[in-house]
């Protein structure tokens, strides 16, 4: 009789070394279930450390600066998170940010467009770059890593060409009000929180958002039930481009200048923020709340190192190290969660 003769492959997970004990394993599995908590506790810990180490951390000026600073990164991170949730990656965000900023700067200063139209133009340029990424990934079938790496170079090149390598500065008040304040709160952070609220509704409450998670979790399953995965991915890259476009406009307003080297290396910060915020690099797991807190962590870390007068050379080391730490603990967490 053939009963019980199934080909059943049992997958055993590597167990942690004995010395680590059961505590660490449990802690890591908890961590995986509460990924936002990980970001929040890191943020609180880092903030406590910062205020202990530097008397300047908890000053109004610094906090205002910090919020204005985090806005740009957070806007980019939101788009990066959408892409990463589907299991993709967008390396072009920094260059797209620069191109969008320069585009809106040119619209205002060279062509004398009214500020709202110039703002929209910047966002539209970002959307268009994202749409090209999406087209390359879904129609031409280039892996997102390569497609967006090409876009990283192309958008940067276009930025330098269009601007002639020069910054575009001194915008009218109708544009720079974005860098102002409502009471003590920067307009920038309000704009970004509005962006997050809108995107959260899309991600958390619509079928489209559900399908983003489904594709990142099990793309084959998503396709089998009839989800148009390519359409979702195209839109996700467009959203990422649009977010980078918003960030470019916000940065131009904050600095009162659109400079062609803006956002160099920003993809590292955006990906680090997403991962720190608990977004899985294989897709399907993560949230915008976590991503925002991840961006806060990265920004606070940078601020702390600045306040301590740490050389920028070491800042790269610190960022890389914290990204690795987050990735390692979350990956272990996945292993032990079941």
């Amino acid at each position: 009789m053939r009963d019980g003769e199934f080909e059943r492959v049992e997958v055993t997970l590597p167990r942690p070394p004995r010395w680590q004990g059961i505590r660490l394993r449990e802690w890591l599995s908890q961590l995986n279930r509460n990924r936002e908590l990980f970001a929040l506790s890191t943020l609180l810990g880092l903030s406590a450390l910062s205020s202990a180490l530097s008397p300047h951390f908890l000053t109004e000026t610094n906090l205002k600066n910090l919020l204005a600073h985090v806005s740009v990164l957070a806007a980019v991170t939101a788009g990066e998170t959408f892409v990463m949730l589907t299991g993709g990656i967008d390396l072009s965000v920094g260059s797209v940010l620069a191109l969008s900023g320069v585009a809106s700067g040119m619209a205002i200063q060279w062509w004398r467009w009214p500020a709202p139209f110039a703002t929209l133009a910047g966002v539209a340029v970002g959307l268009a770059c994202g749409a090209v990424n999406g087209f390359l990934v879904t129609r031409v079938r280039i892996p997102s890593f390569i497609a967006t790496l090409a876009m990283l170079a192309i958008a940067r090149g276009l930025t330098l060409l269009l601007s002639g390598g020069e910054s575009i500065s001194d915008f009218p008040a109708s544009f720079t009000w974005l860098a102002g304040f409502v009471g003590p709160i920067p307009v920038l952070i309000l704009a970004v929180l509005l962006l997050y609220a809108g995107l959260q509704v899309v991600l958390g409450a619509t079928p489209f958002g559900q399908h983003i998670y489904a594709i990142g979790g099990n793309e084959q399953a998503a396709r089998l039930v009839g989800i148009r995965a390519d359409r979702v991915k195209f839109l996700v890259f467009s959203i990422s481009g649009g977010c980078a476009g918003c960030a470019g406009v916000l940065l131009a307003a904050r600095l009162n200048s659109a400079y062609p080297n803006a956002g160099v290396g920003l993809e590292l910060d955006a990906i680090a923020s997403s991962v720190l915020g608990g977004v899985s690099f294989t897709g399907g797991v993560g949230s915008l709340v976590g991503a925002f807190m991840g961006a806060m962590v990265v920004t606070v870390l940078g601020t702390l190192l600045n306040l301590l007068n740490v050389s920028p050379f070491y800042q790269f080391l610190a960022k890389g190290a914290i990204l690795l730490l987050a990735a390692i603990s979350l990956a272990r967490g996945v292993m032990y969660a079941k």
Partner: protein
Amino acid sequence: MRSDPQPFVRMVGIMKRFGGIHALRGVDFTVDRGEVVGLVGDNGAGKSTLIKILAGVYQPDQGELYIDGERVRFKSPLDAKARGIETVYQELALVDQLDVSANIFLGREPTFGPFIDRSRMRQEAHALLTSLQIQIDSLRTPVGQLSGGQRQAVAIARAVRTEPRLVIFDEPTAALAPPEAARVLELVRRLRARGIAVVFITHTLQHVFAVADRIVVLRSGTKVADRPAAATTLEEVVRQMVGEG
């Protein structure tokens, strides 16, 4: 209603090659309305290939497929679904990270304006699971945390939700503990009671005899037997599978 002399599904002379391997060498296969057909055979006999052609996953190299007597060509699983043919896959097509109700409604979420109507989704998922007598503690549990039998039940509930005319099971009871396998077989009977036809593949012959109306045996890509379950015996089917019959 006019009684239709055509079977629901008729496959004629189905052939399929994968490189040098002749997976199917001209197989005829029929399924009547509301009939449970057990498809058995040794590994490599062509069972999975045959049902994947019926489900629209593979296209046959030769042979014809008729639904209600009408010639059809399935280019994708969606074409098969449009004809009321749903599949519960062996490698379960569930998204581990999503919860039970999200998986049941994946790709066809009920909406309220542009938004997912989550309360309706949970209500309908609950009603569906109850009607199939499937017990799952919480609809909000990610399916990655469920047992194999529960996952199988979720996959079955999803297949049934669209009111299909035929559900294909690829090894529904493999990898399940006996009590869970028994529950899945009970589910198959409940589908038949709803008038849904079932084709299922299994290595466990007792399971076939427990629920099938008819048993079809494949060996090396050829159909070697096609009998009502009542007219054959376990020993005979084993002989047909290994080629001593």
